[in-house]
């Protein structure tokens, strides 16, 4: 068994008698970038907040580097760095002073560690200015430095690119990727943008209404194309796909949807025609989050 940096086991969270999070489990190995995908209000933030100790799980356990967050809080937290939602810093201090204050709260954070972190995020030229003069992107970078000064093994990023311009997003991704490559840290990042997950992550967990509805490798999810047919008899088409190709499909608004590889489309089409179906048109498109959700909820698939 490989060493797990983060393990979330059957975690449930009840706030005001409402089950916000329902039995979530996930594991992250060393050097992995794990995406946490879901619409707003699905429970991404709540889950991440439990992992970093801001809220307590109602039941279940979370361990970081083998230390339980409830029983060995300090040791567990020593291995985590995080940005939860927008980066929050003391506006009335300089970026550098922020890092010094937060660094002094961990053991063994030297002045050199802080300077290195500032260099890594490319903020050396502005580190002595007050945070309130920073742009959103600069705050994000100091926020990232803040998460890195104590050399954590796990980096938790909640919607890290919210509010950044495209250039900022690009730079941010470069930094994260180089961190994983050079230092071998693991990253758990949440997002509601599938493109972001696609560009950065190795694995993804899709969460909706407080439940993980699918866990998969990102490659696997995006390999298949999403095809839609407009047919005169979509139900018959669905049966044909099932019986002759063993492909699951769904009918949404009179369109037949299925995930198949491109080279199969011609074969499917000719079978449809042979069976006497009339094809109005066929379209392929890359998956979007919306499709994925419609599809997942239609299948009621639970991985």
């Amino acid at each position: 068994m490989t060493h797990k940096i983060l393990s979330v086991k059957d975690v449930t969270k009840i706030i005001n008698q409402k089950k916000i999070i329902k039995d979530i489990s996930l594991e992250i190995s060393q050097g992995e970038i794990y995406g946490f995908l879901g619409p707003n209000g699905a429970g991404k933030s709540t889950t991440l907040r439990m992992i970093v100790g801001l809220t307590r799980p109602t039941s279940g356990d979370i361990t970081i580097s083998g230390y339980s967050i409830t029983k060995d809080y300090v040791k567990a937290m020593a291995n985590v760095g995080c940005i939860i939602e927008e980066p929050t810093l003391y506006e009335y201090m300089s970026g550098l002073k922020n890092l010094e204050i937060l660094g002094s709260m961990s053991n063994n954070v030297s002045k050199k560690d802080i300077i290195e972190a500032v260099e890594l995020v490319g903020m050396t030229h502005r580190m002595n200015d007050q945070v309130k003069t920073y742009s959103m992107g600069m705050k994000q970078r100091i926020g990232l430095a803040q998460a890195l000064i104590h050399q954590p093994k796990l980096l938790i990023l909640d919607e890290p690119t919210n509010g950044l311009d495209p250039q900022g997003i690009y730079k941010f991704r470069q930094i994260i990727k180089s961190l994983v490559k050079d230092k071998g840290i693991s990253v758990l990042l949440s997002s509601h943008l599938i493109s972001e997950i696609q560009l950065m992550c190795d694995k993804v967990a899709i969460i909706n209404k407080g439940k993980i509805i699918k866990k998969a490798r990102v490659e696997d999810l995006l390999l298949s194309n999403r095809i839609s047919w407009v047919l005169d008899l979509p139900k018959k088409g669905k049966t044909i796909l099932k019986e002759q190709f063993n492909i699951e499909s769904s009918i949404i608004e009179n369109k037949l949807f299925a995930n198949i590889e491109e080279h199969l489309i011609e074969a499917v089409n000719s079978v449809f025609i042979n069976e006497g179906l009339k094809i109005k048109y066929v379209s392929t498109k890359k998956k979007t989050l919306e499709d994925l959700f419609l599809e997942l909820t239609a299948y009621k698939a639970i991985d």
Partner: protein
Amino acid sequence: MITLIRNEIYKTLLKKKIILITILLILFVGLFSYGENYIYNQRINAFLEESNQGDYSWENIANQRLERLKKNLESSYIPERGIKSIKIQIEQLEYFIDNNINPVTPSVARFNVEFVKQSVTLFLPLLIIILGADLISGEFSDKTIKVLLTRAVPRWKILMSKLIALLIMTTLIILLMALISTTVSRLFIDRLGFDEPVATGFQFVNGELSTGSVIRITSLKYTLLNYSLAWFVALVMSAITFMISTLVKSVGSAIGIIMASLIGGQFLQFFLSDWVMVKYFYVTNLDLTKYLTGSYQQVEGMSLVFSVLVLSAWAIASILISFFVFLRKDILV
């Protein structure tokens, strides 16, 4: 832990609160001491006009005031409460004259005492609110609580460091207050008067003033005594401010709640002084310094020991509640 406390003090200093408090103190002490000197001068003028004597020694002025009080007592328009209060003043004044204690001429020492007395119920608590209301609620409204609570430090340590920092800063404020009211009032008032005798320890026995337990101490000791009581009150206020700051998530509501309780408490004291519960409210007990002079009591059955106990109970309960709530709180900002 020391690092954490240093961080907290550093944050407060950066917010320039100590500067604000210093300016407020200088302003108030300046106005107050100028006013006291002005009134004294007017009193001398009035005395000179009335008596046609060239001698305005304090004994003469005190005697004149005594006579005026006695005249007031004969007036039928004064309610019973007012009569009690005047009687006490007369008895004290007689004691002062008999024992050669000067209660008239302004001095820096007496100004200090007077300033503590006047500020202990409202101005001093206000300074503490400036200092502490945003201590925790500020971290919530700036959302910095998220970076503070995701370091490898247990929550109780974070809260404890904030509490200790607040108590240290509160102590600093009292020292600052003593320093400023001594130096600034010296600009307007000539006499220092720290070595003059003062009488304290007046007691009420069956509603009558008793001088049996009165002791004479130097002004310096008396001033220090007043400041230590103010210090105690300030510590209690910090504990209460600390609790409110932990319970609410915005600085505005923290300030609002504490101010409302302070002002509401003063109202309670005036309008519902017969209601037994009033004496257990913290605001009613803030004015510890009044027990030293023996002025008329609004609420019956209160003594220095009683008030100190009530205030201590409030402080301890506040701190316990703060920890209890903070350690269990879900941070959702």
